[in-house]
């Protein structure tokens, strides 16, 4: 099973994402922002970082990268896509997911090990978790405060599209403590926390709770 890992100029967590895919038994395929080529991958991972320096709005430039012209229609047709941190911001800017991520309420970048509740275990990326399960993943961002209008929030909540919620303290002031969401079809997931930093005992966060993302997608692809 081949999972594409996208590198934009300024992407930082691409090596981590590729390693997490490999550790779960998948093949990580590097995808370059400037190419119109998805290389036939079965799923796409948009990792964190500061693409284009985040000098405009986070993700606002990456959205127009040549590669995104391929990712967007493929995702709309059901290709599984995961965006973490900057990747989540890019998914929102590309309108693959609703809402936006704004400056943290505390106005500081925050790096910490965060408790998170899995609310929806039916998406392409969360099948190996159970609804209501609490996990620990690192968050590390300055602009992770999820906002959306009331109508969108209501829709997300009523349709079960809030996939993750912060528990034990909201690190950024996100509305409804939202840490991650999905689209209607459940193939596109965006979240601020970093599952790719929680897959090994030796390094990263003091948990391996991120492994489920990668085993979930590989399982989903095998069954597809």
């Amino acid at each position, binding site marked *: 099973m081949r999972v594409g890992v996208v590198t934009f100029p300024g992407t930082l967590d691409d090596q*981590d994402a590729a390693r997490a895919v490999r550790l779960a038994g998948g093949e990580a395929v590097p995808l370059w922002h400037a190419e119109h080529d998805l290389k036939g991958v079965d799923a796409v991972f948009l990792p964190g970082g500061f693409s284009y320096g985040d000098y405009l709005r986070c993700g606002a430039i990456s959205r127009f990268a040549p590669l995104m012209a391929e990712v967007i229609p493929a995702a709309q047709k059901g290709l599984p896509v995961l965006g973490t941190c900057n990747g989540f911001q890019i998914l929102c800017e590309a309108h693959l997911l609703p809402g936006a991520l704004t400056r943290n309420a505390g106005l*500081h*970048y*925050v790096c910490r090990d965060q408790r998170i509740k899995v609310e929806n275990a039916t998406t392409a990326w969360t099948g190996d978790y159970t609804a209501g399960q609490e996990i620990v993943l690192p968050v590390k961002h300055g602009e992770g405060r999820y906002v959306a209008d009331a109508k969108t929030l209501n829709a997300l909540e009523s349709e079960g599209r809030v996939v993750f919620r912060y528990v034990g303290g*909201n690190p950024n002031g996100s509305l409804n403590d939202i840490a991650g969401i999905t689209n209607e079809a459940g193939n596109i997931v965006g979240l601020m926390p970093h599952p790719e930093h929680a897959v*090994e005992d*030796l*390094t990263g966060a003091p948990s391996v709770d991120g492994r489920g993302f990668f085993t979930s997608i590989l399982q989903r692809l095998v069954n597809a």
Partner: protein
Amino acid sequence: MRVDNVDRAKNTPDEPMPYAELGMKEEEYQRVKEILGRRPTGSELAIYSVMWSEHCSYKSSKVHLKQFATKAPKSDALLVGMGENAGVVDIGDGWAATFKIESHNHPSYVEPHQGAATGVGGIVRDIMSMGARPIAVMDSLRFGGLDQKDTRRVLPGVVEGISHYGNCLGLPNIGGEVVFDPCYIGNPLVNALCVGLLRKDQIKLATAPGPGNKVVLFGARTGADGIGGASVLASATFEEESQAKRPAVQVGDPFMEKLLIECCLELYQADVVVGIQDLGAAGVSCATTELAAKGTGGMTVDLNLVPLRDPTLRPEEILMSESQERMMAVVRPGDIPAFMAICEKWDVPATVLGEVTDTGRLVMTWDGEVIVDIPPGTAADEGPVYHRPFHEPAGQAALNTHVELERPTDLGATLLLLLGSANLSSREWVTSQYDRYVRSNTVLAQPADAGMLRISEVLPGAEETTRGIALATDGNGRYAKLDPYAGAQLALAEAYRNVAVTGATPLAVTNCLNFGSPEDPEVMWQFAEAVRGLADACRTLGVPVTGGNVSFYNQTGAAAIHPTPVVGVLGVIENVADRVRPGFTAEGLRVVLLGDTAEEFGGSEWAYLAHGHLGGLPPRAHLEAERALATVLTTAAGRGLLAGSHDLSDGGLAVALAESCLANGIGATVSLPGEDAFVDLFSESAARALVCVRPEHFDALAALCARQEVPCYGLGRTGGDSLAVAGAFDIPVATLREVHERTLPAVFGSEV
């Protein structure tokens, strides 16, 4: 507008030049005239003035720093020593680490955010220029008192600058220090460290060999950053329009630096770089003179070709500009297309400025006229050398007089006073703003005593090695104020110990020497003593100095900072999976104190907090004991005997016990080995560590200690939810945590 050129300089030998405004002494200017056999042009004066500045030439410190070489211990590990952009150390299995610490003190006071950010950027480029992939940063910070108003301006800006630049660059921040003392209120210290990894056989050096090879400037465009002085040349001398005052603090672009890192690594991999140098202080002046001096000896440069952000810049300003995120490479002509293609892939502008020659002259042109024609070595290597006078400060003897301080009766209250103090409280408010996870190689980071990284996943080809590297920085200005010789040794000893408690073997040293004005003989004495102490200690501990940085003039008016030598130690652990975790890691473990405790309160945190007192003598720097302790720690770690560890330093055993409880929220019940509970708990004797071991491992540890003659005391057991010290106090871990964590947020606001 006319630009001064060599012909004009010959024809107008008596034209007055603004050397004094550029910080040059009359004798220094005369020497430039002797070297050139004429007056310098404005551009030449720009080059000499920056290259001969204290910052670039080490003219006041050189005669002392020599001891790091003459007293260096024999070490097979040292691959590249002092004098290059950074030292390189053999870490085994064909791999090498390069690391260095550097100051960005003055800019960080003027503009905390950009000053600190560009401090990180500069040291990262030093590491890149050795041919390495930068893999982590650390920072050693000192601010005025926590209750002083300006600290609330400087600290948040500095932290935000490091956070913004380092995080955006994608380098984990794995540790460092934050210290408060009123002596730093007008002179905060921002010392940034970077470490990189490279193959042992792929070290790059700053050299420009091979006549005909091309000189390429790549990275950001050149702007008016950091050229304060050069505007004198551009306006005052050459009449016409007066230039506006330019900004003096550089502005960083971490996004460009990230592109530069990836671009450089690809250039190295393609083997299209003959020599390379980063552009830091003194920018193009420094890069061209140093590359040329260490290469075939000559170089031609057409300054009109330098890509500019500000098209009104004049050649003198281009030469002095400290615009960030720039590198200069020497490239074989046939490799230029491949070089340019890689730069283009990463959107990094690159321009051929000239070529290497064997004429022994650095020749620069502007609009077709020769504006610089100098022997490059005279600017790069043959700067002035001063033997500055020094003598012991007038009040030193009085300062060292022992004063009996009233001791507390409530030892629990004393622990809480220390634990919640500005210097010993949780650094979480600062470190939570740094990404410690990026690239997923971080094995240990704050609040561990040392940061640790695995190397198997850093570069292709490293997969087979099990090795890891550990890094710690330490310094104690109060100790150094009381005795700069011992203070420097204690800084080294603590960093060395911090590396050893993680299980790694200390290997090499970098240092950042922060002092007041070298023109003050009393400050110069502090400097001379500190360097002598550090060099002696490095010899005793068997760890060579690989490089570092001197920062003088940390002084406002007559008030200098405490002498503050900051020492970084790099260590290696053979199997990174053997690393020892910080603090108490499980219940039911034996708590063991290693090392002896004497009554040592000079310069202690307790004396300062309880009595506002700084006097007497600092703890003894007992280096043989330090070395034996490190042997015990690393051997025990390698045998899997240690379940957790923590070094003893500021605040003594009491603070070490409390922090060990806080690491995982596990309490302990202990009794003290000595007669005097206050001394046992709060003395700051060096060469001590606290470890916890499974009960069945205690005897093996004790035997190991006996062999190394390291005193070993079983204090008690881990477990429960309080820290109970027999006959002294019993404090819930929750209380310790609350007191420990509230201090910085109370001043700087909530983290989130």
